[in-house]
């Protein structure tokens, strides 16, 4: 079992301080710069991968091949797209609120980057590890709504205004469901710390040990997470047939690219949080009693477990998108407020009973 925190500790003490004779402050600064670079690379690589993945999956659902010319299996297609979007002109518009218009992409990226940094990648591989980790994650990911509202408002365009309002109503409504299903699992885990939640799933993942309430919470989380990322059947903020491109109609070039990037990263974050809460984060699959099996499972590196689980869950979310037709705004809001919210509240009570009377495994 490889613990990556040993690696970072040895990087700090053995390499930077002993081998290179850095003073403490310089060593810490170097590490911070390294963390920043790693975050930046991971963030952009994952976004590029996800854009390619979505296109491939979409093609498979529609009996097409998808991108297959640039690089092996079209893997470099999204890199080429990135360069294409970089060389597009950034049009300066006459009537926009310049400051807010420029600020909006920063907020959207900031929200997803902060949430991204909380995800546990492997044993000891986690950047921000607050004792209120999961709460922090919910808090920072809701900054994204602000960015989207600002983008739509500052563009001074009818399409963007309606798109932003729809998006705001949708995202705040479904944030409630996300919050409540996370709350249900926090109740079960008894801690808000990301490391602690994973540690509690060492023997059995929460989806198995929490049985009925955990499964209900997972389904609700998946639906709310899809809505939260403005994807799939809930993509009416950018319903192209009525609102052109919704809140980012007026953005051009790389400015538009940021919203696109954040959307795909949010897909990964939603899948990552689902992994962390229900499928044991980076914990390998453990079946109580099967000693040999459990030992073999530990030989697969923990980051591979995390990424594989997250990709499987995001595959399900992409599957939604290519299966269900788009909802209307009234259907969307009544789904949340009349179905998901009462079910969620009931589920919370159920989970409390399960914990108090020890009906879990």
């Amino acid at each position, binding site marked *: 079992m490889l613990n990556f*925190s040993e690696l970072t500790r040895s990087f700090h003490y053995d390499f930077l301080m002993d081998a290179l004779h850095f003073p403490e402050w310089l060593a*810490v600064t170097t590490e*911070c710069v390294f*963390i*920043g670079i790693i*975050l*930046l690379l991971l*963030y*952009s690589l994952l976004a590029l991968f996800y854009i390619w993945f979505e296109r491939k999956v979409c093609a498979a659902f529609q009996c097409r091949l998808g991108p297959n010319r640039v690089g092996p299996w079209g893997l470099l297609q999204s890199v080429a797209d990135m360069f294409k979007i*970089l*060389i*597009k*002109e*950034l*049009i300066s*518009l006459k009537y926009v609120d310049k400051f807010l218009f420029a600020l909006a992409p*920063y907020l959207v*990226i*900031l929200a997803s*980057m902060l949430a991204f*940094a909380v995800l546990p990648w492997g044993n*000891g591989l986690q950047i*921000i*590890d*607050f004792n209120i980790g999961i*709460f922090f994650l919910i808090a920072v990911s809701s900054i994204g709504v602000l960015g989207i509202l600002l983008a739509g408002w500052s*563009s*001074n*365009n*009818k*399409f963007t*205004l309606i798109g932003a*309002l729809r998006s*705001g*109503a949708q995202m*705040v409504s479904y*944030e*409630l469901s996300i*919050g*409540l299903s996370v*709350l249900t699992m*926090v*109740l079960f885990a*008894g801690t808000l710390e990301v*490391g602690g939640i994973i540690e509690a799933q060492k023997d059995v993942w929460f989806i198995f040990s929490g049985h009925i309430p955990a499964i209900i919470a997972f389904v609700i989380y998946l639906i709310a997470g899809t809505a939260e990322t403005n994807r799939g059947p809930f993509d009416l903020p950018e319903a192209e047939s009525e609102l052109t491109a919704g809140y980012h109609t*007026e953005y051009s*070039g*790389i400015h538009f690219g940021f919203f696109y990037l954040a959307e795909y990263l949010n897909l990964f974050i939603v899948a990552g949080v689902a992994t962390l809460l229900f499928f044991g984060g980076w914990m390998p699959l453990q079946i109580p009693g099967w000693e040999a099996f459990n030992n073999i499972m530990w030989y697969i590196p923990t980051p591979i477990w995390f990424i594989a689980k997250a990709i499987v869950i995001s595959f399900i979310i992409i599957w939604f998108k290519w299966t269900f037709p788009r909802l209307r705004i*009234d259907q969307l*809001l*009544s789904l949340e*407020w*009349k179905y998901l*919210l009462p079910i969620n*509240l009931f589920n919370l009570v159920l989970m*409390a009973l399960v*914990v*108090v*009377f*020890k009906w879990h495994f």
Partner: protein
Amino acid sequence: MITLSIIQNTTLVVVAALTGIGLVALALWLAGLISPKSFNPQKGEPYECGIPTRGESMAQFKVGYYLFAILFLMFDVETVFLFPWAVRVRELNAAGLGIESLVCIAVFFTILVLGLVYAWRKGALEWK
């Protein structure tokens, strides 16, 4: 497992935030270097499917959005109040106070549910 201190964690939050800002700034700078620039008064117009914009862009919108935002505020704050209880349930149960904690939170929870029922009966959840 290394537990990080609050200062270390806050530093890391700042690092992540700066990375996010840096990503946007870097990409914008790069795009500014290599993207073409051409000037045309038509380009600055708001997008409206090819026709000139008519009337105010800041059109009136449905009050329903506002209503849902208010409802969200209420439920979100109540969810935040539930978090401290949720974290402690296991410990309270181990100390033999599980049932008591359930009864106590049931009072709070009932008020929350009554709020939802009230909003529902008032028709605040209808999209009219």
